[in-house]
């Protein structure tokens, strides 16, 4: 354990916590094939922690955020997590990214009793309170996203032939499960691509061949762009629907719009595509949360522009600060988990809908809204829709999202 | 000049040649390298094969060793028909060959080079080597002893620990010969053993080869007529892939066809 507490009013010293610091860690692909995009997430989180630290920290402690590169390779994740836990002695793991990567350290973190919060992945693995009582998801999982999209399509495109373009891992698989719950009979073709490939024309051509006039893509942004390029090549123009993960219109749209500057007359961007949202993005300039992120990034970010990946990192950091605030001035690892289980479900924050945290659930954001991409921004088509895994019903969210607190730092709840 | 150990050349003590190959025809695309060539190696005899460059001597050796496939050779071993040999089986069949180059293993010491040649005498298997069982250790020692003996026989045991590249050329030639001899062959095929050797070394080589013929049949290819004429009991001459003459050294030296095709007037000294 690092740093005992000299005033000794609580007696116990918690790993990673000193009088004036709390050390937390994370693993991200900062190099290699998965680095584009994802490597921006921790820079956003770091900016927000710096912002909090500059404003007095949490209960007087500054947050030391250590993130390490795993190059999206589970073997490396295991090594850097060892480093984080055994050498850097982090208090908690916050936001470690990737399903296979983070999957490799679930047990290790569990054995070492390290809280494992807000895994940056929509896999269902993180919601196993019985097996992994200290692991929590954060973002909306792919299944509920699929369900909500499926229901929307069933209502608004009930005659359409639907094709699926799926990443061949848990992302595509869970998403498919959700979509099929509503429009199974309408699906004419489900095409999978391996994330290691660089060519999705065969898949898109199969969708075209199957006559799909709506295509739902559970794709990461680069493959969203590739699928758009392939479609353009084949002159194929269905109604596109992309998962939130891959629909970063600011990113994908700008990537694609570059091609229209050249010899391509037929501007191809994500205009008119459908997607879902659980966070507001850079392009929603009027949104008070986005204004906060812009302020934070201006003050503590680098020279590079603010992106949705960075907003994701900041929002996650916000939730963690919120948790710390709620845990009180004497943070312990158990305390952290208890806080999330008891009050995490009521956290008001940057996400459009609340988390599903409870003693029985460690699942993240409970819902999304369906939106249409217009220019670089989105226009909501539905209210925020809430649901849960399995055959839970889809309901509309009643209350509106609260704006961020004045100083941009979540308050410690009264009573603590 | 000739120090024959016995009159084996004229009155063979055996009824059959040790090794006999008949009807060897080899074509490379349009080029006929050998046409209906036969070769017989008698025990206790040194048999020379000579001929102009590209006549097919090395190719004939390659057929005998199974490196080159001939069209329909018939092979006999002590008079019995056997299938054409395959290269890696030669050692076990009692056939050894030296190469026109040196063919020493650069990364192995001289002793190890020769130990590779003695590989066929090992008895223990993979497991005993893996676990370092006494059987494998004893085996290894036996092979080492054989190799050392072979090096001693050729008077090169002094450089057992050296690597071939660091040795003078004549010594390397001897090492290569030691590696062939350590497998205790019955038939020894020597491809240009004297090339690159100085006069003295060549003389020693000649004596050595004669000595060997007590123990085995030797077939020798070389362009040094002094050597060939002095050690061979019988000589076959190839030209353009055909046998143009066979006989004892004196006959061959006097054969006008051989002189025309191979020896030339001047060099015939």
């Amino acid at each position, binding site marked *: 354990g690092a740093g005992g507490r000299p005033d000794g009013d609580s007696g116990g010293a918690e790993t990673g916590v000193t009088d004036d610091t709390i050390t937390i860690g994370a693993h991200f692909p900062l190099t290699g094939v998965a680095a584009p995009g994802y490597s921006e997430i921790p820079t956003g989180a770091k900016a927000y922690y710096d912002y909090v630290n500059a404003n007095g920290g949490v209960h007087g402690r500054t947050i030391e955020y250590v993130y390490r590169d795993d190059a999206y390779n589970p073997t490396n994740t295991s090594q850097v997590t060892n480093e984080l836990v055994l050498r850097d002695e982090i208090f908690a793991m916050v936001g470690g990214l990737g399903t296979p990567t983070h999957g490799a350290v679930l047990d290790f973190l569990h054995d070492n009793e390290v809280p494992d919060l807000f895994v940056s992945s929509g896999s269902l693995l993180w919601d196993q309170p019985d097996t992994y009582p200290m692991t929590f998801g954060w973002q909306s999982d792919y299944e509920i996203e699929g369900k909500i999209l499926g229901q929307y399509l069933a209502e608004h495109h009930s005659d359409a032939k639907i094709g699926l373009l799926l990443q061949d891992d848990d992302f595509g698989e869970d998403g498919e499960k959700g979509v099929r719950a509503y429009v199974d009979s309408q699906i004419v073709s489900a095409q999978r691509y391996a994330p290691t490939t660089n060519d999705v024309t065969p898949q898109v051509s199969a969708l075209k061949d199957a006559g799909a006039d709506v295509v739902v893509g559970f794709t990461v942004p680069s493959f969203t762009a590739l699928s758009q390029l392939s479609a353009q090549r084949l002159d194929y123009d269905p109604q596109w629907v992309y998962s939130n993960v891959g629909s970063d219109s600011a990113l994908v749209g700008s990537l694609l719009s570059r091609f229209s500057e050249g010899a391509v007359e037929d501007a191809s961007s994500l205009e008119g595509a459908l997607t879902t949202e659980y966070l507001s993005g850079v392009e929603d300039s009027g949104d008070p949360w986005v204004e906060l992120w812009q302020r934070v990034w201006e003050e503590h970010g680098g020279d590079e522009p603010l992106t949705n990946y960075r907003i994701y990192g900041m929002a996650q950091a916000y939730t963690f600060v919120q948790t710390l605030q709620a845990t009180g001035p004497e943070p312990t690892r158990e305390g952290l988990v208890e806080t999330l289980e008891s009050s995490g479900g009521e956290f008001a924050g940057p996400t459009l809908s609340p988390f599903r945290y409870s003693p029985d659930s460690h699942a993240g954001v409970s819902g999304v809204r369906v939106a249409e991409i217009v220019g670089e921004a989105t226009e909501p088509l539905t209210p925020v829709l809430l649901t849960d895994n399995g055959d839970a019903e889809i309901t509309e969210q009643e209350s509106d999202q609260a704006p961020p607190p004045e100083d941009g730092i979540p308050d410690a709840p009264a009573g603590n | 000049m000739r120090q024959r150990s016995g009159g084996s050349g004229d009155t063979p003590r055996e009824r059959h040649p040790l090794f006999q190959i008949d009807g060897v025809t080899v074509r490379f695309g349009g080029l006929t390298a050998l046409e209906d060539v036969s070769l017989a190696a008698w025990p206790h005899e040194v048999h020379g094969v000579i001929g102009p460059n*590209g006549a097919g001597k*090395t190719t004939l050796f390659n057929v005998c060793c199974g490196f080159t496939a001939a069209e329909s050779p018939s092979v006999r071993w002590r008079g019995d028909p056997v299938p054409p040999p395959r290269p890696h089986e030669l050692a076990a069949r009692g056939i050894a060959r030296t190469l026109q180059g040196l063919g020493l293993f650069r990364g192995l010491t001289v002793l190890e080079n020769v130990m590779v040649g003695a590989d066929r005498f090992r008895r223990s298997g993979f497991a005993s080597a893996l676990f370092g069982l006494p059987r494998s250790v004893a085996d290894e020692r036996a092979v080492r002893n054989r190799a050392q003996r072979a090096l001693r026989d050729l008077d090169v045991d002094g450089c057992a620990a050296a690597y071939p590249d660091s040795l003078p050329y004549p010594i390397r030639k001897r090492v290569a010969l030691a590696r062939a001899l350590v497998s205790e062959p019955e038939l020894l095929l020597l491809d240009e053993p004297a090339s690159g050797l*100085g*006069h003295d*070394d060549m003389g020693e080589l000649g004596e050595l080869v004669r000595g060997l013929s007590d123990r085995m049949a030797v077939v020798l290819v070389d*362009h040094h*007529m002094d050597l060939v004429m002095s050690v061979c009991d019988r000589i076959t001459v190839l030209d353009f892939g055909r046998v143009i003459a066979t006989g004892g050294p004196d006959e061959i030296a006097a054969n006008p066809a051989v002189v025309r095709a191979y020896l*030339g007037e001047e060099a015939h000294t």
Partner: protein
Amino acid sequence: MNSTLDDPPTERPETGLRIRGLTARYGPVLALDEVDLTAPRGQITAVLGANGAGKTTLLRVVSGLLRPSGGEVLLGSRNLTDSAAEDVARAGVAQVPEGRGVITELTVEENLRLGALLGATRSRAAGDGTPAAPPVPVSDLPDVFALFPSLERRRRQSAHSLSGGERQMLVLGRALLSAPEVLLLDEPSLGLAPKVVARIFAVLRELVDAGGLAVLLVEQNARSALSIADTGVVLNLGRVVACSDASALAADDELRHAYLGF
């Protein structure tokens, strides 16, 4: 350097290859020790000696493949001591290396073309389009094929398929095609049939007699080498132990028995 044909070689000895005090080592091993010798144009100089005497080393130093640790190599008035091998070759010194001088992956014709290319480069460098060296009987591919008929049939074959002797012929032919002023031959008789050896030696003699070619001939086969050479040099343990007229050497019984073994 541009000597004319009718210069009797003996009158201008400085036009050949001169080696002064040449010393070379392989690490601690002294392979050449203050070697002096001259290979004048129009002459064959035989370098003899037992295995390991340093003959190959001498040729490698001359052709620039090995840096000498002392002494100098002069071609005519030109100092080649520290020139790179390619520059030595372009200056007109062709070497037929011991053993593997064939580029086995190329065809016979391509190997020969490389020699011809060097010849062309040299004549271009001479400026006026005339060959840099006096005309030699071997100036194009047909000449080589006339000299070595067995190569012609294998012209498009990969050199890899050649027999040992055929390779040796190929390397010789290639060196001749480069129209050299000085020809360094490292055991050219190696692996060749007696008749071919005799032919090659006769051709060498012819080339030399026809004009300015200087030949430095390294041979194990001292007897036949001395029979065509003008001068003989005997090396032993990296040192010149004798240097004189070829016929005188051949007649010197003591020397013959001590170093030449015949």
